[in-house]
């Protein structure tokens, strides 16, 4: 079948090659040990207790979805997830399974870092079949993956979906999320209401109302409620704030009981692509638990209003490509200019 692609004179692999491989293996092992002391500690706890078995068993009950073009990642290689916040379908009038929030998360076990790039749901992407441009959140999951890969140029290894109740539970576990508002903010459709300007701690319900908000209104100086066009971008920056707060809360919780609770949460609220094996998942979970929150960088994909429709967004032609490159390569993300939105993480 593929004989025509063969090397006509392949090299011989003798003892010299074997020694080179063994040396490389030892270098790799040292690097892994240096890069993941926390992971090693977690693995020790696991070995000693054996109680992780239950967590792994529960993790085996997470819902799975078949997503073309996702696939397992070799040990120690960086992993990029497409994270989708989805309506669980339980909301009255909700459109089940639609992605309401979208972000890319890249974990680099060798470097001990993680980065998060949020993708506004109003970003316009070209639909491969029809050639028309549509909002990215209107696409089903496999076409979202291919749009991210072919149009943003970020390869996606795995997909994880979190339902709204899971998001709410995560915020509550983390003890709420701190946000700053410049003026009172509300959304009568999602039930968001923050009446005091300044830094406030939102519980799970209000945090969910905020990240779901599409019609955010801000009280202006004249005492009128006006819809704020920047609110959607603010919303996406809050998703990242929640994620980082949740990570900070989870970090260091490598004991079996926390692992079991986390696995129970995952089994209840997550859906994963079916190419993510339980072993790979458990390794990644241990990695995330051992992650230093200071090693997590996050930013919003730089966007500009689209010339086609001011309510839709395009990738910022100047600031977008360097940010995407930095995210993909795992280098530090560029500084983002001052956020003009009325809501921000605090």
């Amino acid at each position: 079948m593929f004989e025509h692609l063969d090397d006509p004179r392949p090299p011989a692999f003798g003892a010299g090659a074997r020694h080179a491989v063994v040396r490389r293996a030892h270098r790799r092992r040292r690097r892994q040990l240096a890069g993941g002391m926390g992971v090693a500690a977690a693995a020790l706890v696991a070995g000693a207790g054996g109680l992780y078995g239950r967590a792994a068993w529960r993790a085996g009950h997470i819902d799975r979805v078949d997503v073309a073009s996702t696939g397992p990642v070799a040990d120690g290689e960086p992993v990029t997830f497409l994270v989708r916040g989805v309506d669980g379908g339980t909301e009255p009038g909700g459109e089940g399974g639609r992605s309401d929030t979208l972000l890319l998360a890249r974990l680099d076990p060798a470097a001990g870092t993680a980065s998060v790039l949020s993708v506004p749901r109003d970003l316009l992407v070209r639909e491969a079949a029809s050639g028309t441009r549509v909002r990215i959140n209107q696409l089903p999951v496999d076409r979202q993956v291919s749009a991210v890969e072919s149009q943003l140029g970020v390869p996606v290894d795995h997909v994880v979906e979190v339902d709204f109740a899971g998001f709410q539970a995560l915020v509550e576990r983390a003890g709420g999320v701190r946000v700053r508002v410049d003026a009172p903010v509300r959304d009568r459709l999602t039930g968001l209401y923050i009446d005091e300007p300044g830094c406030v701690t939102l519980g799970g319900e209000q945090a969910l109302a905020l990240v779901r908000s599409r019609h955010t209104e801000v009280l202006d100086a004249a005492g009128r409620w006006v819809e704020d066009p920047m609110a959607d971008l603010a919303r996406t920056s809050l998703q990242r704030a929640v994620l980082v707060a949740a990570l900070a809360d989870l970090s260091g919780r490598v004991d079996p009981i926390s692992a079991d609770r986390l696995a129970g949460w995952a089994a209840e609220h997550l859906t994963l692509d079916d190419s993510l094996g339980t072993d790979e998942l458990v390794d990644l979970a241990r990695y995330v638990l051992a992650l230093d929150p200071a090693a997590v960088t996050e930013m919003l994909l730089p966007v500009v209003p689209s010339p086609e429709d001011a309510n839709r967004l395009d990738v910022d032609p100047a600031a977008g490509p360097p940010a995407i490159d930095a995210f993909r390569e795992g280098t530090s993300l560029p500084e983002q200019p001052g956020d003009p939105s009325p809501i921000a993480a605090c």
Partner: protein
Amino acid sequence: MRSTTRQPPSFEERFADLASLAYRVAFRLTGDRAESEDLAQEALARAYLRWRRVAGYDEAWVARVTTNLAIGRWRRHRRVELRAPGHEPPRRHQRPADPLDRLEVVRVLRSLPRRQREAVALRYLADLPEADVAAHLGCSVGAVKQHTHRGLAALRRAAEQAPHDEETTGVRASR
């Protein structure tokens, strides 16, 4: 090829065969000697580190890891190509007589559902027997036949299409 004794063979015993296998898989995907040697070395180093887990199904394991590594590196190459908008990506190592160009093979493999990709890689890149592929993937021989049949059909479709219709990439190219 495989030892029939109860005691699993040592890494040292299996090294030459496995390295040749990894090299063949890597070369079929990359067409580059230095890169294929490096990929084979990396795959074997990873096998060495977890030899006890790998030893029962070493050929399938090494073939799968090599395929994933080669496809991963191809993705990195592709990222480099992305940075130069307006330039056609170089068609590396293409020989006019190739019934299926390497870039096409990698691109199609990458786009296949995981089971099909693994079945095609193990069966046709690593030339493993169907029974071994089935044992490694944990499915029946019939399922392997079905996965490889679909995967090969996708490869044939790609071969029949014009060679330059790769979907181009948006952010930079569209502006």
